[in-house]
Protein backbone atom coordinates (compact mmCIF):
# COMPACT_ATOMS: atom_id res chain seq x y z
CA UNK A 1 0.00 0.00 0.00
CA UNK A 2 2.45 2.62 -1.17
CA UNK A 3 -0.14 5.06 -2.40
CA UNK A 4 -2.36 4.68 0.61
CA UNK A 5 -2.97 8.44 1.08
CA UNK A 6 -3.94 8.83 -2.56
CA UNK A 7 -6.48 6.00 -2.37
CA UNK A 8 -7.87 7.47 0.83
CA UNK A 9 -8.21 10.91 -0.73
CA UNK A 10 -9.95 9.44 -3.77
CA UNK A 11 -12.40 7.56 -1.60
CA UNK A 12 -13.01 10.68 0.47
CA UNK A 13 -13.70 12.74 -2.64
CA UNK A 14 -16.02 10.03 -3.97
CA UNK A 15 -17.90 9.94 -0.67
CA UNK A 16 -18.29 13.72 -0.60
CA UNK A 17 -19.40 13.72 -4.23
CA UNK A 18 -21.90 10.98 -3.46
CA UNK A 19 -23.26 12.94 -0.49
CA UNK A 20 -23.55 16.15 -2.51
CA UNK A 21 -25.21 14.35 -5.43
CA UNK A 22 -27.84 12.47 -3.45
CA UNK A 23 -28.92 15.56 -1.52
CA UNK A 24 -28.99 17.65 -4.68
CA UNK A 25 -30.68 15.15 -6.97
CA UNK A 26 -33.39 13.77 -4.63
CA UNK A 27 -35.99 16.53 -5.31
CA UNK A 28 -35.28 16.36 -9.04
CA UNK A 29 -35.95 12.61 -8.98
CA UNK A 30 -39.36 13.19 -7.44
CA UNK A 31 -39.97 15.83 -10.10
CA UNK A 32 -39.09 13.35 -12.84
CA UNK A 33 -41.42 10.72 -11.39
CA UNK A 34 -44.28 13.23 -11.11
CA UNK A 35 -43.67 14.48 -14.65
CA UNK A 36 -43.53 10.98 -16.13
CA UNK A 37 -46.72 10.11 -14.31
CA UNK A 38 -48.45 13.17 -15.70
CA UNK A 39 -47.22 12.35 -19.21
CA UNK A 40 -48.50 8.79 -18.94
CA UNK A 41 -51.89 10.22 -18.00
CA UNK A 42 -51.81 12.57 -21.00
CA UNK A 43 -51.27 15.71 -18.92
CA UNK A 44 -48.52 18.26 -19.05
CA UNK A 45 -47.51 17.96 -15.41
CA UNK A 46 -45.55 20.31 -13.14
CA UNK A 47 -42.03 21.32 -14.21
CA UNK A 48 -39.13 19.07 -13.26
CA UNK A 49 -37.87 21.61 -10.74
CA UNK A 50 -41.19 21.93 -8.92
CA UNK A 51 -40.01 20.05 -5.78
CA UNK A 52 -37.17 22.60 -5.33
CA UNK A 53 -39.69 25.45 -5.52
CA UNK A 54 -41.86 23.62 -3.01
CA UNK A 55 -38.97 23.21 -0.58
CA UNK A 56 -37.98 26.86 -1.00
CA UNK A 57 -41.57 27.92 -0.38
CA UNK A 58 -41.67 25.86 2.82
CA UNK A 59 -38.44 27.51 3.95
CA UNK A 60 -39.90 31.02 3.68
CA UNK A 61 -43.16 30.28 5.48
CA UNK A 62 -43.46 30.50 9.24
CA UNK A 63 -43.91 27.27 11.15
CA UNK A 64 -47.04 26.97 13.24
CA UNK A 65 -47.12 24.79 16.33
CA UNK A 66 -50.54 23.50 17.44
CA UNK A 67 -51.56 24.39 20.98
CA UNK A 68 -52.04 20.77 21.96
CA UNK A 69 -48.53 19.77 20.89
CA UNK A 70 -45.70 19.19 23.35
CA UNK A 71 -42.18 20.58 23.17
CA UNK A 72 -41.10 17.49 21.26
CA UNK A 73 -43.22 18.56 18.27
CA UNK A 74 -40.16 20.09 16.62
CA UNK A 75 -37.91 17.12 17.34
CA UNK A 76 -39.64 14.49 15.21
CA UNK A 77 -39.12 16.08 11.75
CA UNK A 78 -35.44 16.52 12.56
CA UNK A 79 -35.17 12.90 13.67
CA UNK A 80 -36.91 11.69 10.50
CA UNK A 81 -34.63 13.80 8.32
CA UNK A 82 -31.42 12.83 10.10
CA UNK A 83 -32.13 9.09 10.10
CA UNK A 84 -33.09 9.17 6.40
CA UNK A 85 -30.11 11.38 5.58
CA UNK A 86 -27.64 9.02 7.24
CA UNK A 87 -29.24 6.02 5.51
CA UNK A 88 -28.99 7.70 2.11
CA UNK A 89 -25.28 8.36 2.70
CA UNK A 90 -24.68 4.70 3.49
CA UNK A 91 -26.20 3.22 0.33
CA UNK A 92 -23.74 3.41 -2.56
CA UNK A 93 -25.01 5.37 -5.53
CA UNK A 94 -22.76 5.78 -8.55
CA UNK A 95 -19.75 3.92 -7.14
CA UNK A 96 -18.80 1.25 -4.65
CA UNK A 97 -16.02 1.41 -2.10
CA UNK A 98 -17.06 4.66 -0.43
CA UNK A 99 -15.69 5.49 2.99
CA UNK A 100 -19.11 4.64 4.40
CA UNK A 101 -18.99 1.16 2.86
CA UNK A 102 -18.06 -0.77 6.04
CA UNK A 103 -20.96 0.92 7.83
CA UNK A 104 -23.55 0.15 5.17
CA UNK A 105 -24.68 -2.93 7.03
CA UNK A 106 -28.18 -4.03 6.05
CA UNK A 107 -29.26 -4.34 9.68
CA UNK A 108 -28.05 -0.77 10.31
CA UNK A 109 -30.14 0.39 7.39
CA UNK A 110 -33.23 -1.41 8.67
CA UNK A 111 -32.60 0.21 12.07
CA UNK A 112 -32.33 3.67 10.50
CA UNK A 113 -35.58 3.09 8.61
CA UNK A 114 -37.17 2.07 11.91
CA UNK A 115 -35.95 5.24 13.66
CA UNK A 116 -37.29 7.43 10.85
CA UNK A 117 -40.59 5.59 10.87
CA UNK A 118 -40.97 5.71 14.66
CA UNK A 119 -40.24 9.45 14.67
CA UNK A 120 -42.77 10.06 11.89
CA UNK A 121 -45.38 8.04 13.77
CA UNK A 122 -44.76 9.94 17.01
CA UNK A 123 -45.00 13.18 15.04
CA UNK A 124 -48.38 12.04 13.75
CA UNK A 125 -49.56 11.23 17.27
CA UNK A 126 -48.10 14.43 18.73
CA UNK A 127 -51.12 16.71 18.36
CA UNK A 128 -53.73 14.17 19.35
CA UNK A 129 -55.36 14.79 15.99
CA UNK A 130 -57.48 11.91 14.66
CA UNK A 131 -56.11 11.47 11.16
CA UNK A 132 -52.49 11.60 12.31
CA UNK A 133 -53.13 8.93 14.91
CA UNK A 134 -54.96 6.69 12.45
CA UNK A 135 -52.15 7.06 9.92
CA UNK A 136 -49.56 6.25 12.59
CA UNK A 137 -51.51 3.11 13.46
CA UNK A 138 -51.57 2.06 9.81
CA UNK A 139 -47.89 2.78 9.42
CA UNK A 140 -47.20 0.55 12.43
CA UNK A 141 -49.32 -2.20 10.90
CA UNK A 142 -47.46 -1.99 7.57
CA UNK A 143 -44.03 -1.74 9.13
CA UNK A 144 -44.40 -5.01 11.06
CA UNK A 145 -44.73 -6.86 7.77
CA UNK A 146 -42.36 -4.70 5.75
CA UNK A 147 -39.49 -5.09 8.20
CA UNK A 148 -40.05 -8.82 8.49
CA UNK A 149 -40.02 -9.16 4.70
CA UNK A 150 -36.86 -7.06 4.45
CA UNK A 151 -35.08 -9.20 7.05
CA UNK A 152 -36.02 -12.41 5.26
CA UNK A 153 -34.82 -11.03 1.92
CA UNK A 154 -31.60 -9.98 3.60
CA UNK A 155 -31.06 -13.58 4.68
CA UNK A 156 -31.07 -14.60 1.02
CA UNK A 157 -28.61 -11.85 0.07
CA UNK A 158 -26.19 -12.74 2.85
CA UNK A 159 -26.25 -16.39 1.87
CA UNK A 160 -25.52 -15.48 -1.76
CA UNK A 161 -22.97 -12.72 -1.32
CA UNK A 162 -21.34 -13.75 1.99
CA UNK A 163 -21.57 -10.15 3.07
CA UNK A 164 -24.16 -8.21 5.04
CA UNK A 165 -23.18 -4.74 3.80
CA UNK A 166 -24.96 -3.25 0.81
CA UNK A 167 -21.57 -2.43 -0.65
CA UNK A 168 -20.34 -6.01 -0.31
CA UNK A 169 -23.56 -7.43 -1.78
CA UNK A 170 -23.28 -5.06 -4.73
CA UNK A 171 -19.64 -5.98 -5.39
CA UNK A 172 -20.42 -9.70 -5.14
CA UNK A 173 -23.37 -9.42 -7.54
CA UNK A 174 -21.44 -7.24 -9.99
CA UNK A 175 -18.82 -9.93 -10.55
CA UNK A 176 -21.57 -12.01 -12.12
CA UNK A 177 -20.38 -15.43 -10.97
CA UNK A 178 -23.66 -15.85 -9.11
CA UNK A 179 -25.59 -15.87 -12.37
CA UNK A 180 -29.34 -15.63 -12.72
CA UNK A 181 -30.93 -17.64 -10.01
CA UNK A 182 -34.55 -18.28 -9.16
CA UNK A 183 -34.13 -16.97 -5.65
CA UNK A 184 -32.87 -13.59 -6.89
CA UNK A 185 -36.10 -13.18 -8.84
CA UNK A 186 -38.14 -13.87 -5.73
CA UNK A 187 -35.96 -11.52 -3.69
CA UNK A 188 -36.43 -8.77 -6.29
CA UNK A 189 -40.22 -9.11 -6.16
CA UNK A 190 -40.17 -9.01 -2.36
CA UNK A 191 -37.82 -6.03 -2.23
CA UNK A 192 -39.92 -4.06 -4.71
CA UNK A 193 -43.07 -4.68 -2.67
CA UNK A 194 -41.32 -3.41 0.47
CA UNK A 195 -39.89 -0.43 -1.44
CA UNK A 196 -43.32 0.62 -2.71
CA UNK A 197 -44.70 0.47 0.82
CA UNK A 198 -41.79 2.32 2.41
CA UNK A 199 -41.82 5.15 -0.09
CA UNK A 200 -45.61 5.41 0.06
CA UNK A 201 -46.20 4.88 -3.64
CA UNK A 202 -49.41 3.72 -5.21
CA UNK A 203 -50.52 0.21 -4.38
CA UNK A 204 -50.28 0.94 -0.67
CA UNK A 205 -50.51 4.72 -0.41
CA UNK A 206 -51.21 7.53 -2.83
CA UNK A 207 -48.59 10.32 -2.78
CA UNK A 208 -50.98 12.64 -4.64
CA UNK A 209 -53.96 11.82 -2.46
CA UNK A 210 -55.92 14.54 -0.73
CA UNK A 211 -58.42 12.40 1.16
CA UNK A 212 -57.29 12.24 4.78
CA UNK A 213 -59.05 8.93 5.40
CA UNK A 214 -56.99 7.15 2.76
CA UNK A 215 -53.62 8.75 3.48
CA UNK A 216 -50.81 7.13 5.40
CA UNK A 217 -47.54 8.99 4.99
CA UNK A 218 -49.06 12.39 4.30
CA UNK A 219 -51.61 12.18 7.11
CA UNK A 220 -48.86 11.92 9.71
CA UNK A 221 -47.47 15.30 8.68
CA UNK A 222 -50.76 17.14 8.25
CA UNK A 223 -50.09 19.39 11.25
CA UNK A 224 -46.59 20.33 10.21
CA UNK A 225 -45.86 23.50 8.31
CA UNK A 226 -42.97 25.74 7.32
CA UNK A 227 -39.48 24.41 7.88
CA UNK A 228 -40.81 21.31 9.68
CA UNK A 229 -42.71 20.40 6.54
CA UNK A 230 -39.58 21.10 4.53
CA UNK A 231 -37.63 18.54 6.57
CA UNK A 232 -40.38 15.92 6.28
CA UNK A 233 -40.90 16.44 2.54
CA UNK A 234 -37.17 16.46 1.87
CA UNK A 235 -36.86 13.23 3.88
CA UNK A 236 -39.60 11.67 1.74
CA UNK A 237 -37.70 12.66 -1.44
CA UNK A 238 -34.48 11.25 -0.01
CA UNK A 239 -36.29 8.04 0.86
CA UNK A 240 -37.45 7.62 -2.74
CA UNK A 241 -33.88 8.10 -3.98
CA UNK A 242 -32.58 5.78 -1.27
CA UNK A 243 -34.83 2.90 -2.29
CA UNK A 244 -34.04 3.38 -5.98
CA UNK A 245 -30.33 3.40 -5.12
CA UNK A 246 -30.75 0.28 -3.03
CA UNK A 247 -32.61 -1.59 -5.77
CA UNK A 248 -30.16 -0.34 -8.37
CA UNK A 249 -26.99 -1.26 -6.48
CA UNK A 250 -28.21 -4.73 -5.62
CA UNK A 251 -30.02 -5.78 -8.79
CA UNK A 252 -28.40 -3.56 -11.45
CA UNK A 253 -24.79 -3.29 -10.26
CA UNK A 254 -23.47 -3.23 -13.83
CA UNK A 255 -21.14 -0.43 -14.71
CA UNK A 256 -20.83 0.95 -11.20
CA UNK A 257 -17.62 2.88 -10.70
CA UNK A 258 -15.03 2.07 -8.05
CA UNK A 259 -14.12 4.81 -5.64
CA UNK A 260 -10.34 4.29 -5.90
CA UNK A 261 -10.34 4.45 -9.71
CA UNK A 262 -11.11 7.98 -10.79
CA UNK A 263 -11.23 7.08 -14.48
CA UNK A 264 -14.30 4.91 -13.93
CA UNK A 265 -16.25 7.72 -12.30
CA UNK A 266 -17.74 9.42 -15.39
CA UNK A 267 -19.11 6.13 -16.70
CA UNK A 268 -20.48 5.25 -13.30
CA UNK A 269 -22.11 8.65 -12.92
CA UNK A 270 -23.67 8.47 -16.36
CA UNK A 271 -25.03 4.97 -15.75
CA UNK A 272 -26.33 6.04 -12.35
CA UNK A 273 -28.33 8.82 -13.94
CA UNK A 274 -29.62 6.47 -16.64
CA UNK A 275 -30.62 3.84 -14.07
CA UNK A 276 -32.43 6.39 -11.89
CA UNK A 277 -34.24 7.80 -14.91
CA UNK A 278 -35.29 4.35 -16.06
CA UNK A 279 -36.51 3.38 -12.60
CA UNK A 280 -38.43 6.66 -12.30
CA UNK A 281 -40.14 5.99 -15.64
CA UNK A 282 -40.98 2.40 -14.66
CA UNK A 283 -42.35 3.55 -11.31
CA UNK A 284 -44.52 6.17 -13.00
CA UNK A 285 -45.86 3.65 -15.53
CA UNK A 286 -46.55 1.13 -12.78
CA UNK A 287 -48.37 3.71 -10.70
CA UNK A 288 -50.55 4.76 -13.58
CA UNK A 289 -51.52 1.17 -14.39
CA UNK A 290 -52.47 0.02 -10.90
CA UNK A 291 -55.05 1.06 -8.36
CA UNK A 292 -54.46 1.73 -4.71
CA UNK A 293 -55.44 -1.22 -2.57
CA UNK A 294 -57.55 -1.17 0.53
CA UNK A 295 -55.61 -0.56 3.74
CA UNK A 296 -56.38 -3.97 5.15
CA UNK A 297 -55.24 -5.61 1.93
CA UNK A 298 -51.74 -4.21 2.41
CA UNK A 299 -50.64 -6.64 5.15
CA UNK A 300 -51.62 -9.41 2.76
CA UNK A 301 -49.51 -7.83 0.01
CA UNK A 302 -46.54 -7.53 2.34
CA UNK A 303 -47.16 -11.00 3.73
CA UNK A 304 -46.86 -12.31 0.17
CA UNK A 305 -43.59 -10.37 -0.10
CA UNK A 306 -42.34 -12.04 3.07
CA UNK A 307 -43.29 -15.47 1.78
CA UNK A 308 -41.46 -14.71 -1.48
CA UNK A 309 -38.40 -13.86 0.61
CA UNK A 310 -38.74 -17.19 2.40
CA UNK A 311 -39.03 -18.95 -0.97
CA UNK A 312 -35.85 -17.22 -2.11
CA UNK A 313 -34.12 -18.67 0.94
CA UNK A 314 -35.56 -22.14 0.29
CA UNK A 315 -34.28 -22.17 -3.28
CA UNK A 316 -30.88 -20.97 -2.13
CA UNK A 317 -30.61 -24.03 0.07
CA UNK A 318 -31.67 -26.17 -2.88
CA UNK A 319 -28.98 -24.61 -5.06
CA UNK A 320 -26.41 -25.09 -2.31
CA UNK A 321 -27.29 -28.77 -1.99
CA UNK A 322 -27.16 -29.30 -5.73
CA UNK A 323 -23.86 -27.53 -5.99
CA UNK A 324 -22.23 -29.71 -3.34
Amino acid at each position, binding site marked *: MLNFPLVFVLRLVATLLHAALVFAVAPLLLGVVTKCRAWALGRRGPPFLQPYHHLYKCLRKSALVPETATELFAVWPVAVFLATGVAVLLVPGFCTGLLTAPLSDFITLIGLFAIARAAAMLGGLETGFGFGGAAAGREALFSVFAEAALLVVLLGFVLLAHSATVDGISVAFATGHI*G*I*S*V*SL*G*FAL*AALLAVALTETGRIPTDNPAGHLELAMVHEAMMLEYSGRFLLLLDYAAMLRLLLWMDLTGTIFLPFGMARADDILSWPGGLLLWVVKLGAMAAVLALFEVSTAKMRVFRVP*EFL*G*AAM*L*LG*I*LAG*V*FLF*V*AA*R*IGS
Partner: protein
Amino acid sequence: MTLTFSLAHLMGGILLLCGFLLLSQRRLAAMITLYQVQAFTLAAAAFWQGYAQSEVNLYLTGLITLALKAVLLPLGLREIVRRFNLTRAVETAMPMALSMLLGVGLIGIAVLVVLPTTMNAVSLTREDLAIALSVVLLGLLVMTSRRSALAQIIGFLSTENGLVLAAIGMPGMPFVAEFSVAMLVLLAFLVVGVFLLRIREHFDTLDVTGIEDIERRGR
Protein backbone atom coordinates in the same frame (compact mmCIF):
# COMPACT_ATOMS: atom_id res chain seq x y z
CA MET B 1 -23.54 -22.38 -14.60
CA THR B 2 -24.01 -21.76 -18.27
CA LEU B 3 -26.47 -19.38 -19.82
CA THR B 4 -28.71 -22.26 -20.97
CA PHE B 5 -29.49 -23.40 -17.48
CA SER B 6 -29.61 -19.91 -16.02
CA LEU B 7 -32.29 -18.89 -18.48
CA ALA B 8 -34.20 -22.15 -18.04
CA HIS B 9 -34.13 -21.62 -14.28
CA LEU B 10 -35.22 -18.03 -14.64
CA MET B 11 -38.24 -19.05 -16.69
CA GLY B 12 -39.03 -21.80 -14.22
CA GLY B 13 -38.82 -19.20 -11.48
CA ILE B 14 -41.25 -16.90 -13.32
CA LEU B 15 -43.65 -19.83 -13.75
CA LEU B 16 -43.49 -20.56 -10.05
CA LEU B 17 -43.91 -16.89 -9.20
CA CYS B 18 -47.04 -16.76 -11.39
CA GLY B 19 -48.36 -19.89 -9.70
CA PHE B 20 -47.79 -18.34 -6.31
CA LEU B 21 -49.38 -15.02 -7.27
CA LEU B 22 -52.35 -16.94 -8.68
CA LEU B 23 -52.89 -18.19 -5.16
CA SER B 24 -52.86 -14.68 -3.74
CA GLN B 25 -55.27 -13.13 -6.26
CA ARG B 26 -58.92 -12.55 -5.54
CA ARG B 27 -60.12 -11.21 -8.86
CA LEU B 28 -60.92 -13.43 -11.84
CA ALA B 29 -59.51 -10.99 -14.39
CA ALA B 30 -56.16 -10.87 -12.59
CA MET B 31 -56.12 -14.67 -12.30
CA ILE B 32 -56.69 -15.05 -16.03
CA THR B 33 -53.95 -12.54 -16.83
CA LEU B 34 -51.54 -14.34 -14.52
CA TYR B 35 -52.41 -17.64 -16.15
CA GLN B 36 -51.73 -16.07 -19.54
CA VAL B 37 -48.33 -14.78 -18.40
CA GLN B 38 -47.54 -18.23 -17.06
CA ALA B 39 -48.46 -19.85 -20.37
CA PHE B 40 -46.37 -17.33 -22.34
CA THR B 41 -43.38 -18.04 -20.11
CA LEU B 42 -43.94 -21.75 -20.56
CA ALA B 43 -43.96 -21.33 -24.34
CA ALA B 44 -40.72 -19.33 -24.13
CA ALA B 45 -39.20 -22.02 -21.91
CA ALA B 46 -40.22 -24.71 -24.41
CA PHE B 47 -38.63 -22.77 -27.30
CA TRP B 48 -35.48 -22.23 -25.27
CA GLN B 49 -35.23 -25.91 -24.34
CA GLY B 50 -35.87 -26.84 -27.96
CA TYR B 51 -32.99 -24.60 -28.98
CA ALA B 52 -30.73 -25.91 -26.21
CA GLN B 53 -31.46 -29.60 -26.84
CA SER B 54 -31.89 -28.99 -30.62
CA GLU B 55 -35.19 -30.88 -30.62
CA VAL B 56 -37.83 -29.98 -33.22
CA ASN B 57 -40.56 -31.55 -31.07
CA LEU B 58 -40.02 -29.02 -28.32
CA TYR B 59 -40.60 -26.19 -30.79
CA LEU B 60 -43.92 -27.84 -31.64
CA THR B 61 -44.76 -28.07 -27.94
CA GLY B 62 -43.93 -24.40 -27.60
CA LEU B 63 -46.14 -23.52 -30.56
CA ILE B 64 -49.06 -25.52 -29.17
CA THR B 65 -48.59 -23.91 -25.76
CA LEU B 66 -48.46 -20.46 -27.31
CA ALA B 67 -51.49 -20.88 -29.53
CA LEU B 68 -53.64 -22.91 -27.19
CA LYS B 69 -52.83 -21.88 -23.66
CA ALA B 70 -51.47 -18.38 -24.04
CA VAL B 71 -54.02 -17.12 -26.57
CA LEU B 72 -57.03 -19.39 -27.03
CA LEU B 73 -57.84 -20.48 -23.48
CA PRO B 74 -57.53 -17.01 -21.88
CA LEU B 75 -59.79 -15.68 -24.64
CA GLY B 76 -62.29 -18.40 -23.81
CA LEU B 77 -62.03 -17.72 -20.08
CA ARG B 78 -62.56 -13.99 -20.59
CA GLU B 79 -65.51 -14.75 -22.85
CA ILE B 80 -67.05 -16.88 -20.09
CA VAL B 81 -66.52 -14.09 -17.55
CA ARG B 82 -68.11 -11.59 -19.93
CA ARG B 83 -71.02 -13.76 -20.99
CA PHE B 84 -71.90 -14.96 -17.50
CA ASN B 85 -71.43 -11.45 -16.14
CA LEU B 86 -69.58 -12.93 -13.20
CA THR B 87 -69.04 -10.87 -10.09
CA ARG B 88 -65.36 -10.28 -10.30
CA ALA B 89 -64.37 -11.10 -6.73
CA VAL B 90 -63.61 -14.76 -6.13
CA GLU B 91 -65.02 -16.41 -3.05
CA THR B 92 -62.23 -18.16 -1.20
CA ALA B 93 -62.80 -21.23 0.91
CA MET B 94 -60.07 -20.31 3.37
CA PRO B 95 -58.34 -17.11 4.47
CA MET B 96 -55.85 -15.75 1.93
CA ALA B 97 -52.96 -15.78 4.39
CA LEU B 98 -53.57 -19.41 5.28
CA SER B 99 -53.64 -20.51 1.65
CA MET B 100 -50.40 -18.63 0.96
CA LEU B 101 -48.73 -20.22 3.97
CA LEU B 102 -49.93 -23.61 2.74
CA GLY B 103 -48.47 -22.72 -0.66
CA VAL B 104 -45.04 -22.07 0.80
CA GLY B 105 -45.32 -25.31 2.75
CA LEU B 106 -46.17 -27.21 -0.45
CA ILE B 107 -43.18 -25.72 -2.26
CA GLY B 108 -40.99 -26.79 0.64
CA ILE B 109 -42.43 -30.32 0.44
CA ALA B 110 -41.86 -30.43 -3.32
CA VAL B 111 -38.23 -29.44 -2.83
CA LEU B 112 -37.72 -31.95 -0.02
CA VAL B 113 -39.30 -34.75 -2.04
CA VAL B 114 -37.61 -34.10 -5.35
CA LEU B 115 -34.05 -33.65 -4.12
CA PRO B 116 -33.46 -37.04 -2.41
CA THR B 117 -35.40 -39.09 -4.98
CA THR B 118 -33.48 -37.70 -7.95
CA MET B 119 -30.04 -38.08 -6.43
CA ASN B 120 -28.71 -39.91 -9.49
CA ALA B 121 -30.26 -37.65 -12.12
CA VAL B 122 -28.42 -34.95 -14.00
CA SER B 123 -27.86 -32.35 -11.33
CA LEU B 124 -29.06 -29.36 -13.31
CA THR B 125 -32.51 -30.73 -14.13
CA ARG B 126 -33.28 -31.36 -10.49
CA GLU B 127 -34.08 -27.80 -9.57
CA ASP B 128 -36.36 -27.57 -12.61
CA LEU B 129 -38.14 -30.69 -11.48
CA ALA B 130 -38.64 -29.24 -8.01
CA ILE B 131 -40.09 -26.07 -9.57
CA ALA B 132 -42.39 -28.10 -11.83
CA LEU B 133 -43.71 -30.17 -8.92
CA SER B 134 -44.26 -26.97 -6.92
CA VAL B 135 -46.28 -25.45 -9.78
CA VAL B 136 -48.41 -28.60 -9.95
CA LEU B 137 -49.05 -28.58 -6.19
CA LEU B 138 -49.82 -24.85 -6.17
CA GLY B 139 -52.35 -25.39 -8.97
CA LEU B 140 -54.03 -28.10 -6.91
CA LEU B 141 -54.08 -25.75 -3.93
CA VAL B 142 -55.75 -23.06 -6.06
CA MET B 143 -58.38 -25.63 -7.00
CA THR B 144 -59.09 -26.49 -3.37
CA SER B 145 -59.00 -22.97 -1.97
CA ARG B 146 -61.52 -21.39 -4.36
CA ARG B 147 -65.28 -21.72 -4.41
CA SER B 148 -65.90 -20.38 -7.90
CA ALA B 149 -65.84 -23.07 -10.57
CA LEU B 150 -64.02 -20.80 -13.00
CA ALA B 151 -61.20 -20.15 -10.53
CA GLN B 152 -60.93 -23.89 -10.03
CA ILE B 153 -60.53 -24.36 -13.77
CA ILE B 154 -57.72 -21.80 -13.81
CA GLY B 155 -56.05 -23.80 -11.04
CA PHE B 156 -56.44 -26.96 -13.11
CA LEU B 157 -54.90 -25.31 -16.17
CA SER B 158 -52.00 -24.02 -14.09
CA THR B 159 -51.42 -27.56 -12.80
CA GLU B 160 -51.12 -28.71 -16.38
CA ASN B 161 -48.56 -25.96 -17.03
CA GLY B 162 -46.41 -27.49 -14.30
CA LEU B 163 -46.65 -30.90 -15.95
CA VAL B 164 -45.52 -29.52 -19.29
CA LEU B 165 -42.64 -27.71 -17.58
CA ALA B 166 -41.47 -31.02 -16.12
CA ALA B 167 -41.83 -32.66 -19.54
CA ILE B 168 -39.80 -30.12 -21.51
CA GLY B 169 -36.99 -30.18 -18.97
CA MET B 170 -36.45 -33.90 -19.43
CA PRO B 171 -34.52 -34.91 -22.53
CA GLY B 172 -36.15 -37.72 -24.47
CA MET B 173 -39.80 -37.11 -23.58
CA PRO B 174 -41.87 -38.38 -26.54
CA PHE B 175 -43.80 -35.68 -28.34
CA VAL B 176 -46.94 -37.83 -28.55
CA ALA B 177 -47.35 -37.67 -24.78
CA GLU B 178 -47.12 -33.90 -24.68
CA PHE B 179 -49.42 -33.51 -27.66
CA SER B 180 -52.07 -35.75 -26.15
CA VAL B 181 -51.85 -33.89 -22.83
CA ALA B 182 -52.41 -30.61 -24.65
CA MET B 183 -55.40 -32.02 -26.55
CA LEU B 184 -56.76 -33.47 -23.32
CA VAL B 185 -56.62 -30.09 -21.67
CA LEU B 186 -58.50 -28.50 -24.55
CA LEU B 187 -61.17 -31.22 -24.41
CA ALA B 188 -61.40 -30.91 -20.64
CA PHE B 189 -61.81 -27.17 -21.03
CA LEU B 190 -64.68 -27.65 -23.50
CA VAL B 191 -66.38 -30.22 -21.27
CA VAL B 192 -65.99 -27.99 -18.24
CA GLY B 193 -67.36 -25.07 -20.23
CA VAL B 194 -70.54 -27.04 -20.89
CA PHE B 195 -70.64 -28.00 -17.22
CA LEU B 196 -70.35 -24.38 -16.22
CA LEU B 197 -73.38 -23.60 -18.38
CA ARG B 198 -75.36 -26.35 -16.67
CA ILE B 199 -74.28 -25.27 -13.18
CA ARG B 200 -75.22 -21.75 -14.08
CA GLU B 201 -78.65 -22.79 -15.33
CA HIS B 202 -79.43 -24.71 -12.17
CA PHE B 203 -77.98 -22.50 -9.46
CA ASP B 204 -77.68 -19.05 -11.07
CA THR B 205 -74.10 -18.94 -9.80
CA LEU B 206 -70.78 -20.64 -10.35
CA ASP B 207 -70.28 -21.20 -6.65
CA VAL B 208 -69.91 -24.94 -6.20
CA THR B 209 -71.26 -24.94 -2.63
CA GLY B 210 -74.71 -25.46 -4.17
CA ILE B 211 -73.59 -28.80 -5.56
CA GLU B 212 -72.15 -29.81 -2.22
CA ASP B 213 -75.54 -29.12 -0.62
CA ILE B 214 -77.30 -31.41 -3.08
CA GLU B 215 -74.69 -34.06 -2.49
CA ARG B 216 -75.27 -33.88 1.24
CA ARG B 217 -79.04 -34.10 0.86
CA GLY B 218 -78.76 -37.05 -1.51
CA ARG B 219 -76.94 -39.17 1.04
